[in-house]
């Protein structure tokens, strides 16, 4: 049989025709792929569900597949007409999963991949798709760093693998590793912008998160932090052109306001602090009835309710040769801080064309522009929300005529009371970002089953930052060392990337049951960065706000940078009768970030899976549809450090108007890839016709050769050297359960995922603690990296309580020397959650649908660093205090956790576990309600569907955290210093109504 020539087979082929319809409603199904199994010979059904295909003979089997439908295999036999009835899949087994340079069905996967369909976030007003992952996939931890619109998020897949290289996963949109993280050159008090907010999440067809080595190794050098594959929408073959319009409008408000003291309460507290310090409060100007004559609620003065609106129109369609998708959207989100606003325009186009049986090509294009009006926030002394927290209620934002108080007014508080209302509305911080992501591909079938595909893509980002702070602001007017008379900065940057990917795909089968497929490829990637900026001061007046009018242009910068990656890719998959599956994947990467000797790294992986449910002895368990055990092992890497760090370098150094060179960095020619060894074992099970599915994964990952700017004694002339030192381990368990609890007129489904990750630093160069985060008062720093402890460990004194006799803080004298010194600093907690996950329930009945999404985190600590200012025990009298301060010790015998207030005494305010709080929370992340108008009402308007809906996010939170929001992190993106709340703007709650019309 094997000896028969294929040419003969084709000549003797049989033509099969038929129609594909839906089991549910008998409607024709267009765009279903009909394929001769084991070959690439395939067609798709047309608008009426009809298809026609040549098959080699009666022994052939047809494979019918489509996203969202259960795949079917049909033996041809002697028939020439085969009508196919397809069923909507309620489980995910037949779902198509993107696996890097290939796609496959979920049931054929031998690695760990989580998929998030856009259905799961379509009613949540996410600004970026990384936010859409929040609570939706096991092993993926997403937390929003603040309530700033368009702001950064922390995304971690299976924990933190790296100390100083990036921990952000690799985000790949339509094959291009896109810019993620911050694009802007300026951070606003810890908060950055988010490059992923330039994409419209509604243009996304699928998100696949690659979690284990086998899935990720194809991305080798950059895959250690996980890979998120984004596929944008494309038109379906033989589909009537379809239009969809979507409108959302709503309101945004802060989730919870901080509770601060009013003027009289604060004055009493400050007077007490001064008296405790043995001084006379009247002499310091703290006079009852005078100082507290004014009582301003600064928080209310700087916050507002924002308006949220989003409009989108999209169309898609195509015939069997050409398909397209086209969309445009507009989003406008007002921040809750005065004057902050995020506006986005996007356009998306996708085009695929099949020129001949062998040749196809196409393109994808994303164009978007964001205008981000930002305000200073977080740990900026002259920030808006931070300023409002700190500013004394004794001052007022406006005079009697409604004019804002500025630096020249006697009523202006001055440092650090900078009239936060003025700080919000007067400066201009506008960031304009333009993104163009374009890809062109061609695919050619060289021989049967051997396909060559080449794609060239560019990710082009242009960032313009336009800033001006007038003389009525802190920087522009109050601080002569900076502005004095207006301060302007204008900067422009271009960050772009070109990727060329070339792959050969080959598949064949042997003796029917042995299926092989292989991919080989090479990829070139180059990233370019060009930046320039100007700073001007001394403007004639505040009417002139651009640097053209500046009296002095005293700072300027221009810079260019380039880095590159050259890679070879290989993958071989094998399965026997879809029962035993194996995959071997490898990538060989060369990076410009390492020296000649250490430039290339090899990242191999292997996985095997066993579909137990296919074994004969399992056939008796009829309730079990699928049971698959899989395991994988392999290596991935990380190279996300700055460029040229392996070189010992000197940089420009100035002196009295002359310019020379000064030392910049110590050389390390042996700097090399950070490598993570990953092992994974998982079980996929599906019961009761797919109504209940489980996925359990357990993993053990060890990262070694950590890229790390290792602190060294400064007697060397340097403070750090970039090295590969130490090991970090991540071990964890993930569970995902999906069930359809009721599937009648009422349909109720539940998705639940929960993850546990245990992160631990195994070793470092020395056992000496490495300090990170903010400097602490009385101890080194807020954070420490220490062998045996997880990343994100908090450091400080151990607060043992308040001495009822004296009211002073009692700290643990760890070294027993009778004094409290920095040497008594110790580990006081960590920011890593023990458990996190999400629970979504969806109920639909007739046209109605309701979805309730809860998200949780358990066991993480938050360092409430804000309280080192807001419950400062009298260290200074220039900041307002939190209501917690009223619990302070006042007289002998008081039992309290807040020490007594003593003016200018910082002892009671040392950085200690007093500021550490439980950050566990359960949050009602989203509730949405929708109604699809009955077809009979809308059909006469030629409308195919109309859905009205309402959605609310962050409505309710259960937490013991005393700050306004447990889900914040002031150092956006930091790993070693995560989970610090330092005047961080809390999340917002958004309530909106929406309308979707399809026609």
């Amino acid at each position, binding site marked *: 049989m094997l000896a028969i020539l294929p040419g003969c087979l084709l000549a003797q082929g049989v033509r099969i025709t038929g129609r594909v319809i839906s089991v549910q409603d008998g409607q024709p199904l267009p765009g279903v792929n009909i394929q001769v199994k084991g070959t690439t010979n395939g067609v798709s059904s047309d608008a009426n569900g009809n298809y026609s295909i040549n098959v080699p003979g009666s022994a052939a089997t047809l494979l019918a597949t489509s996203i969202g439908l259960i795949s079917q295999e049909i033996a041809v036999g002697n028939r020439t007409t085969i009508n196919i009835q397809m069923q909507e899949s309620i489980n995910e087994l037949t779902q198509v999963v993107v696996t890097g340079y290939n796609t496959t069905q979920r049931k054929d996967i031998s690695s760990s991949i989580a998929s998030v369909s856009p259905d799961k976030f379509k009613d949540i007003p996410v600004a970026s798709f990384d936010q859409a992952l929040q609570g939706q996939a096991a092993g993926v931890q997403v937390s929003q760093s603040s309530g700033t619109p368009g702001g950064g998020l922390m995304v971690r897949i299976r924990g933190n693998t790296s100390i100083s290289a990036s921990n952000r996963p690799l985000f790949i949109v339509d094959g291009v590793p896109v810019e993620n993280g911050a694009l802007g050159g300026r951070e606003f008090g810890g908060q950055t912008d988010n490059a992923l907010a330039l994409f419209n999440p509604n243009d996304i067809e699928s998100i696949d998160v690659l979690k284990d080595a086998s899935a990720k190794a194809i991305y080798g050098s950059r895959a250690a932090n996980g890979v998120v594959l984004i596929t944008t929408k494309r038109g379906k073959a033989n589909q009537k052109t379809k239009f969809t319009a979507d409108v959302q409008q709503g309101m945004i408000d802060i989730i919870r306001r901080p509770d601060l003291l009013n003027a009289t309460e604060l004055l009493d507290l400050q007077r007490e602090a001064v008296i405790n310090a043995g001084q006379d409060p009247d002499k310091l100007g703290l006079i009852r009835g005078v100082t507290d004559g004014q009582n301003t609620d600064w928080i209310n003065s700087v916050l507002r309710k924002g308006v949220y609106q989003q409009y989108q129109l999209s169309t898609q369609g195509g015939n069997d040769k050409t398909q397209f998708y086209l969309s445009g959207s507009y989003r406008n989100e007002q921040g809750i801080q005065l004057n902050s606003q995020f506006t986005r325009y996007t356009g998306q186009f996708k085009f695929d064309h099949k020129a001949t049986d062998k040749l196809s090509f196409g393109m994808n294009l994303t164009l978007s522009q964001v205008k981000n009006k930002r305000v200073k926030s977080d740990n900026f002394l002259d920030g808006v929300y931070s300023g409002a927290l700190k500013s004394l209620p004794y001052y007022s934002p406006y005079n009697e005529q409604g004019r804002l108080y500025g630096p020249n007014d006697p009523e202006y508080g001055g440092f650090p009371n900078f009239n936060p209302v003025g700080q919000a509305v007067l400066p201009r911080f506008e960031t304009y970002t333009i993104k163009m992501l374009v890809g062109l591909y061609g695919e050619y079938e060289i021989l049967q089953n*051997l396909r060559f595909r080449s794609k060239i893509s560019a990710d082009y980002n242009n960032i313009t930052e336009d800033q001006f702070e007038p003389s009525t602001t802190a920087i522009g007017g109050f601080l002569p060392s900076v502005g004095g008379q207006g301060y302007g900065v204008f900067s422009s940057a271009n960050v772009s990337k070109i990727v060329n990917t070339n792959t050969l795909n080959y598949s064949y089968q042997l003796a029917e049951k042995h299926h092989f497929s292989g991919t080989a490829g090479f990829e070139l990637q180059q990233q370019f960065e060009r930046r320039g900026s100007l700073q001007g001061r001394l403007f004639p007046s505040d009417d002139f706000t651009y640097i053209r009018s500046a009296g002095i242009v*005293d700072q300027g910068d221009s810079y260019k940078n380039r880095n590159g990656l050259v890679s070879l890719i290989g993958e071989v998959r094998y399965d026997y009768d879809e029962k035993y599956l194996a995959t071997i994947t490898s990538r060989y990467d060369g990076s410009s970030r390492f020296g000649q000797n250490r430039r290339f790294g090899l990242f191999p992986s292997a996985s095997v899976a066993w579909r137990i449910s296919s074994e004969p002895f399992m056939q008796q368990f009829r309730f079990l549809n699928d049971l698959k055990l899989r395991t994988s092992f392999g290596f991935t890497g990380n190279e996300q450090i700055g460029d040229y760090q392996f070189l010992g370098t000197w940089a420009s150094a100035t*002196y*009295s108007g002359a310019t020379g060179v000064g030392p*910049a960095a110590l050389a390390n020619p042996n700097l090399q890839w950070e490598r993570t060894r990953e092992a994974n074992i998982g079980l996929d099970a599906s019961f009761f016709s797919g109504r209940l599915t489980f996925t359990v994964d357990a993993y053990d990952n060890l990262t070694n050769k950590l890229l790390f700017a290792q602190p060294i004694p400064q007697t060397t002339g340097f403070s750090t050297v970039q090295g590969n030192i130490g090991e970090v381990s991540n071990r964890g368990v993930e569970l995902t359960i999906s069930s359809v609890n009721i599937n009648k007129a009422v349909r109720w489904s539940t998705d639940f995922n929960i993850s546990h990750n245990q992160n631990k630093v195994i070793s470092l160069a020395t056992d000496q603690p490495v300090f990170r985060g903010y400097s602490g008062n009385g101890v080194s720093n807020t954070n420490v990296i220490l062998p045996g402890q997880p990343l994100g460990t908090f450091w400080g004194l151990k607060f043992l309580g308040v001495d009822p006799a004296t009211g002073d803080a009692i700290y643990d004298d760890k070294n027993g020397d009778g004094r409290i010194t920095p040497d008594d600093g110790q580990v006081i907690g960590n920011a890593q959650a023990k458990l996190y996950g999400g629970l979504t329930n969806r109920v639909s009945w007739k046209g109605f649908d309701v979805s309730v999404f809860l998200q949780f985190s358990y066991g993480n600590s938050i360092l409430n660093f804000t309280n080192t200012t807001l419950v400062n025990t009298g260290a200074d009298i220039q*900041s307002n205090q939190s209501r917690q301060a009223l619990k302070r010790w006042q007289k002998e015998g008081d039992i309290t956790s807040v020490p007594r207030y003593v003016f*200018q005494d910082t002892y009671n305010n040392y950085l200690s576990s007093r500021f550490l709080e439980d950050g566990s929370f359960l949050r009602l992340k989203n509730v949405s309600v929708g109604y699809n108008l009955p077809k009979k009402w809308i059909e006469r308007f030629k409308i195919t569907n109309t859905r009205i809906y309402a959605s609310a996010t962050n409505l309710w939170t259960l937490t013991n955290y005393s700050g306004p929001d447990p889900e914040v992190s002031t150092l956006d993106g930091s790993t070693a210093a995560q989970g610090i709340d330092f005047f961080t703007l809390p999340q917002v709650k958004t309530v909106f109504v929406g309308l979707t019309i399809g026609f």
Partner: protein
Amino acid sequence: MPTGKDNKDNMIRFFRYSIVLTLAVLASCQQILEPKPVDLLVDDLVLNEPNDVQPVRIGLYNAFRSMGASNMIAGDFTADYIQANGTFNDYIQFGTKRITATNDVVDVLWNNLFSTIYVANFILERLPNVSGVKDDTRKQVLAEARFMRGWANFIGAYTYGDLPKVTTTDNQTNTQIARTAKADILASVLADYQAALTDLPAVDATSTNATTNATYLNKTNCRAAMARFYLYQKNWAQAEALATQVITSGVYTLLTNYSDVVTKDFTTESVLEVGYALSDDPGTSATGLNNLLVGRREVIPSNQLVAALISTEAGTRSQTITFNAQQQRASDNGWTVRKYGTASEDNNNIVYIRLAELYLIRAEARAQQGKLTGATGAVADLNVLRTRAKAPAITLTAQADVLLAVERERVYELAFEGQRWYDLVRTGRVQAVMSAFSPNWDSHYELWPIPQREIQLNTALVQNPGY
């Protein structure tokens, strides 16, 4: 269905294509994998040829300049000149005299000292081997390197006490390095200074470029530094002799108005001064002096210093500080230090040595030697400064009184030029003065702590007592 043979052919072709692709990759590697940095110079290229000497020399001066701000903070914030007025813990520590080993400024000064020493050692190791450099250039730059290494060690020894003695750029050697006795360090300082003095260029009274004379090293300003060294060493005769040499050289001359000392850069009185241009001004960086003293007003002059400076004894030196009634509230006395301006003002430099100090050095050296009155007496030197400041002349005659007058005169003349704490410690007056100023003062504050991070990273280091 494909046949076995067909499969085999396909496989062969598949690998053939793969090999072609592999070769294409390797060809494009070089260009992509070896981009050149635009703003960095690789170690090996830094000092190879005569043209490299000047840039590296400027780098040395840059490192030398970096010590200025933290050295000033050590000298004046540790003592009785200031009170804390802001929210930075580091400066509250200085204000309340509760300085800890984690204070950032303690670390910044340490860092700056040793990065200066690194560049100096780099030049001392490499420059002798660079061929084609003119002999006098080579001698001068080597002398400058030795001077600056000496200067850094001098500050280090008086700030931290015993100090790691770093004489090489070898990373290994300098990582685990123990402290060397202060006396040995100071001996090496003298050796460096003496070697520098031999090879530095000479200047004389005909040299009128005040900027160059203060910006770059010459024999005269090297002597000024040595006069300070001998004063600290209590070698009164040498201190007096060297101070006299500087004063009589005619290269540097006292200004007529003290206010110009406060508000102008590169005056004729400036013996050694490190300059900032508009574009490299420290601005709001952590130790930017204008930012600390004027912008944020993290520290303000202490009430007792204000009283001293606005007394008639100080004369026009009251211009060192200025009062703004609008700022006077709560614990803020409304006074601000004026000696450090913004980038766009003409006083954003840091003066290391000023001719007035040489008069004070000589006065003290003379008083210690019993030369009190007359043309070559201490009082005459003090009165030179008093006359310039339009303050009443001194008429004291007892040695103890004259020595106290020198101490007071240094307050009037040199406030916020980084001298006070060092003066009090070396004259043994620190306990008396500081205990009266702050209840938290303790004798262990006569030295700064070794930065906590250094103690942790270099196990050969032992912390100073009391910290």
